[in-house]
């Protein structure tokens, strides 16, 4: 019976979530590391009033690497069009710290890469599954987020970023 009631509460709640918009939320302040081992406060994620993409990934997550590789192919165009900056947050644990750099460089990614070794940023952002991607507007409000990746999903992402860059309303998404 307990089980049924929990399922019931969650299903009701899912309905609320589907209907809700994500306006007005900002990034939490959490300490993460850069690839070179320096401390970095997530409040310092910034792009001079232009849109920001924050994407959570890990070395073992194939869809994540697919997503970031797909975006890497068009990243230059995106930056030219919208001025967007992508922060790739690796949630790999300590053993992989030294491997993130080689993968990022090996793949030729131009992103800002941060290491969230103990998942503090992940938890503060309520990330359950990766890939999980956030779009922030010029005032660093979280305006859109999405989990999972499939070929073509990057098209939706750039559509959102373009609208944000132009100051359009995206509440329909």
């Amino acid at each position, binding site marked *: 019976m*307990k*089980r049924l009631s929990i399922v019931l509460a969650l299903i009701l709640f899912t309905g609320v979530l589907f209907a809700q918009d994500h306006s007005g939320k900002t990034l*939490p302040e959490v300490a993460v590391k850069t690839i070179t081992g320096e401390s970095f406060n997530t409040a310092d994620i910034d792009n001079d009033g232009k849109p920001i993409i924050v994407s959570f990934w890990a070395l073992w997550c194939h869809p994540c690497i697919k997503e970031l590789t797909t975006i890497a192919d068009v990243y230059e165009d995106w930056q030219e069009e919208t001025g967007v900056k992508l922060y790739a947050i690796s949630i790999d644990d300590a053993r992989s710290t030294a491997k993130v750099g080689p993968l990022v460089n090996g793949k030729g990614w131009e992103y800002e890469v941060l290491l969230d070794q103990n998942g503090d940023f992940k938890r503060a952002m309520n990330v*359950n599954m990766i890939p999980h991607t956030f779009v922030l507007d010029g005032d660093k409000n979280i305006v859109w987020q999405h989990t999972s990746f499939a070929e*073509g999903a990057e098209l939706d992402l750039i559509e959102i970023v373009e609208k944000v860059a132009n100051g359009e309303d995206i509440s329909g998404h």
Partner: protein
Amino acid sequence: MKKYILKSIGVFAILFAFTQMANAQSPQKYGQVSGSFQLDAQLYQEDSELGITAEDINGQDMRMNAFGNIIYRLGNFSAGVRYEAYLPPLAGFDTRLEGQGFVNRWARYSTGIIDVTVGNFYEQFGSGMIFRAYEEWSLGYDNSVDGARVILTPMKGMTIKGIYGTQRFFWQKYEKNNRGIVRGGDLDLFMNDIFSGLESSKTKLTLGAGLISKYQADLDPIYKLPENVMSWSGRFNLSHGGFFWQTEYAHKINDPNAINDYIYKDGQGLFSSMSYSQKGLGFALSAKWIDNMGFKSDRAVTGDALFINFLPPNAKTHSYSLSAMYPYATQVNGEAAIQATINYRVPKKSKLGGKYGMGIELNFSHIRAIDKTPLNDSTSIGQSGTLGYETKFLSIGDDVYFQDLGIEIDKKINKHFKLIVSADMIKYNMAIIEGHLGEPDVDAFVWVTDLSYRFKRKHSLRWELSQLLTKQDQGNWIASTLEYNFAPTWFFAISDQYNYVNKDGVIKYTNENGEVHETEFEKLHYPTIAAGYTKGTTRVLLSYGRQREGILCVGGVCRAVPKSNGFKITITSSF
């Protein structure tokens, strides 16, 4: 029954009120609420071919794991709660998880200089060799600390942490002497910020040191046990351009416990990892040596619960199903490991790279025992109530625990096709890793091809074909998955894993004593269909079919997944 419905409506009302508050127009005044939840449920069916009988299911044909997190934030203040329910836990999770209730509640105040948390928190010192409290939902792993944490940043580049508390042990509340108390401190110095002369240097150096002490009363009638066990570590991180080097040494004083079988030897460990990368090329090399480093806040507990420290394996985490058939789990009582990875991007428009270039990753890991010698003629290695054994720092033993040599190539063929090919040769010491005495080492070869075909802007197909070849364990496997994606909303997949063993279905081996073991396996298919729907951060995943027996590992902590047949649903969301 009425009570539960009322309770669930209550929970819902609170959640609803919170989200409404979250939607309020002025977050500066009322704060922000965010949260997430996940529900995994499975309906278990009998399956005579898999050997699952009504008795195995034992009336618990429906099982569920669920959690919900809510975080409230206003300026420098934040607070949160975490609710979990396992009614009962999914097959393969620790049965002690059964129950429901609020597992975590915490409040935190943080300014630039001081950051104080009371209640439950997660934390890590250095690479985690002496202390790491974290949580991994897919394993049912949570060793959060309930107590207090203070983080000070007295000057730029310096971080001081102090922690004090007890660790989570399923649903058991802390009571006097039912488990240990953990306390500790850590200092981290980023030298470039501390010494102004180094500020503009391209060479970046971080030094750190940590200390953890565990208190647990000695109530044992047989052994004289240390009530305070201390562990410390020192570390550095050095980087210069594309070069990065990280090293940590850890030491633990006498800590007889259930993992090391009550030996009184000190433990020590060294982890060092180095990498170099430039555009299109990356190289990483890491080495680890550990001896008697199992450290828990209750010396009598085995299994995954109550670990104070974290010793990740030096092996690649595979994500394709068959490649992940034989994952390595760290042997905390002693292992010596090395791992090397090379990433190379064949440039665009080269002969091999073609129009889009091509990525190559080579990976090698090798893990073996450390060299242990008996203390004297009358004491066997690891005998309880003695120093256990002798070993030289960085000694290497004869037994190979694990080896993986692999290559992975990814290539975009044209606008429509993308291909990933991988191959791995794995050696897996089943007797040591799974504790199945007398089982032979598994030598497996696995190859995978993963082809994506985008036929319309947002429509794509993905076809995965893989094969695992081995003469041991359950023999050969072949697996295939076909997936249709309509980005970013829908996905459908159909897959089958076929354990065709070998021609006659018999696995035969001779053990050390010369006894011949012969096991006949039934050749079995494990078909599954699945569908998923994603909108924003809400994802619903349904699947139906058979699940093969396996081991799921995340960060070196593993959980056995039993074979099952049935209907499965996962709902996850965050806001």
